């Protein structure tokens, strides 16, 4: 689960001399929200986001149609992009949680993936959500169980052991500290091709653990 496995390679990019109106057009037409700005050799120079293309009326000398179209006809990508100095990037060898943390801390929606100053891909919040979804077995039919377990070693193996003893296989699993309940963890597992009642019967027998939520999806 490294950045290089989840980023989008060969993103759509734009050169700094292009007109901002064209950038807007490309983003609209391809339904994208981020557009890396690159120079020769795909060297990263900046980034265009949808926010950047919102030119506030206060920046305009007047609201005359003529004035607006004159300004737009001269406005280039270079003028509106997030400059390289302010840009936060990531390496393709980084782990996903690191990327996620950077995006949360800075409250940004995308990270250009850069090697030696050259753009190799782009990682957006959608890529991270896709990863979260597949981590929890999204899109695959099975029984999804949330189990609350005490925060101590040896609890997870009780769950896996009980499932393995039945000859079943776990498709996916994940764990987080229980929200609002200190010293407990919530584990989410998904088991395929098992009747819900059978699975619940097996898991209920584990002492000290509690099934919080069961559903077949």
């Amino acid at each position, binding site marked *: 689960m490294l950045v290089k496995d989840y980023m*989008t390679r060969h993103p*759509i990019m734009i050169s700094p001399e292009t007109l901002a109106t064209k950038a807007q057009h490309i983003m609209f037409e391809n339904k994208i929200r981020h557009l890396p700005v690159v120079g020769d*050799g795909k060297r990263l120079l900046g980034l265009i986001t949808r926010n950047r293309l919102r030119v506030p009326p206060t920046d305009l000398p007047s609201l005359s149609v003529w004035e607006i179209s004159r300004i737009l006809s001269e406005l280039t990508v270079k003028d509106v992009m997030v400059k390289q100095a302010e840009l936060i990037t990531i390496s393709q060898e980084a782990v996903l949680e690191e990327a996620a943390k950077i995006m949360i801390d800075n409250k940004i929606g995308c990270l250009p993936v850069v090697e030696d100053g050259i753009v190799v891909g782009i990682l957006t919040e959608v890529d991270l959500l896709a990863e979260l979804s597949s981590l929890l077995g999204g899109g695959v039919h099975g029984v999804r169980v949330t189990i609350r377990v005490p925060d101590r070693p040896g609890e997870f193996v009780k769950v896996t052991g009980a499932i393995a003893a039945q000859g079943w296989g776990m498709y996916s699993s994940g764990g987080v500290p229980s929200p609002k309940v200190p010293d407990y963890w919530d584990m989410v597992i998904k088991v395929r091709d098992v009747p819900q009642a059978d699975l619940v019967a097996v898991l209920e027998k584990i002492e000290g653990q509690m099934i919080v939520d069961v559903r077949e999806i």
Partner: protein
Amino acid sequence: MKNKLGPVLKLEDVAVAYKVRGGEIEAVQNVSFEINRGETHGIVGESGCGKSTVAWAILNFLGANGYVKRGSIKFLGQELVGVTGEELRRLRGDQIAMVYQDPMQALNPSMRLGDQMSEVLTVHQQMEKTKAEKRCIEMLERVYMPDAANVMKRYPHQISGGQQQRVVIAMALLNNPALLIMDEPTTALDVTVEAAVLDLIAELRRDFDTAIMYITHNLGVVARVSTRVGVMYAGEMVERATVEEIYKNPQHPYTQGLIRCVPKLGADKATSMLYPIRGRVPPPNNRPSGCIFGPRCDYVQERCRAERPELRQTEGGSWVRCHFAEEIDPSQWTSSDEVAPPKLDADKQHGDPILELKDLRKYYQVQGSSLKDVIGLGETRYVKAVEGANFSVLQGSTLGIVGESGCGKSTLIKTIIGLEDPTSGEAKFLGVDIANNISSRQQHLIQELQMVFQNPDSTMNPSYTVGQQIGRPMKHFGTVPKNQIRSEVIKLLEAMRLGENYYDRLPRQLSGGEKQRVGIARALASHPDLVLCDEPVSALDVSVQAAILNLLLEIQQEFNTTLIFIAHDLSVVRFFSDQVAVMYLGQFMEIGPAEAIYAPPYHPYSEALLSAVPIPDPTVKQKHIRLKGSVPSAIDPPGGCRFHTRCPRRELLPDGGKICEVETPPWRQVTEDHRIFCHLPLEILSTFDPVISESKEEI
């Protein structure tokens, strides 16, 4: 999910036109397709159908008189039509790369490989020289180049063709392009090298998420690399579908015709037939109205002549440009008389041996460059081009010879015909010794022994008309009275399906397939008993290839001519030959009846060759055997068994095959006429599984 960003390349209704005197010609019309990240889109079709033109249009490389007339080409969401100058240069350098057919023409012969490779990085990415070189070495290793650091210091001519193509591919990938256009990248390579390059392309596509546009005329190659395929005919895309659909369920009559033109591996002339498509591709300035394929189509109806079909989606999901795609059932198809393949007498008995070779050798002396060599004291060294050729060919039968390039196939043929003097050994043709110099050979022997060359362009005198070329041997050998030569030539031309109007044409007025027919007609003009064919169909399109093969079969049937047939396409050899010989580094490895060569027991080399053949059927499972390295030098061939350096089966012998390095292997007699040259005993050779197995679905 990977495609949430849309396709890398999207062509919509593209038409490309060339301005010529008196107007313009639309070379390509209405082409639409798209390629996503990590996908290979194959483009197939005969030559002159506009495949390369589409590729050039994408790169805006059409020359001064060509331009995109209609439609749009979108690369990563941005329009490419009309982009010029700086923007275009940046795109070509950074995001789009192209690999051409001939690697030697893509490399600068006067620059070291390392310099020209690192130039890509230093110029486009302003990378430092030392760092760029390190990246280049990494990339060369990525494409499995042996001894990468050393290759950087060499010049292009110092490495083999397969390696050159790898350098070109590595160079194309250095900038991590979003789109890679490959125009027949493996056509010039041997099957074994081709298989390795195709593996590599599939792997790189996965790892780098590159979108690949793969142009080829070889249906087998397309089946192996592509995810989707577009079939082009006369500048239009006539069918577009996933690779499985195209082969299982071809919708367009042209696609069906193409598939009928290629011999299936394992098919032979007794049980199956090739059906060429009648007629030929219309020139772009003279396309028929209505359906463009109409004049060659077996299902043509009134509506096809009046109305041009649109590319439309059928229920199966494939796109096809045909009015009647749903109504056509290819299994009900019968050939029209015009292209009907010759009826073969299945129980034909072959006569006595016409050609017998005993231990024939051909060595070339090589001049050393040391002082000792110059004054004549050095040890004389030889290129052992052909070693111990031992076989006989029966009258009226066909012997196929296969092997990688540089293994002595052509030398053997040239030695038989007399273009080269054999070093030692015996060669008897019709009972007469032909091992001596050709100048002392009798006139009638020369007449009985003729040759068809691979490249008809370089074997025909460009200033002689077709009639003169074919009439010359008749005049020379006096087989036909002088006043009848013309009518005899025309008879031959008609047998080649060329007709009288070709008599006064010059070679440059003929297409490749026609030239090859003239070449065959000339070889047959003296009514020879034995015709040696050196790759006669390799340079031709599949439909022409099918026609030529049928023609040769017919002639063989009629005149009881004996043929020796060299080809690198193993399915063609299997189809065409009665006997097959497998050569490696001048040495015969296996010789036997065609069906025996293609089934176990195999020689390990034959097995590897078979597993490398691209098969025009994506559902067939092939064993994955890839030979390492390239054919060693014939000046200093490996001792013992010549194949031991690359043999994948050596470990089956005790001691890791120590014996293969020191001892010449014995000939193992499988049946009376099937021999294998290997240390492995027959019991082990027989345990090999067949290389090709049908998929389970079909059983």
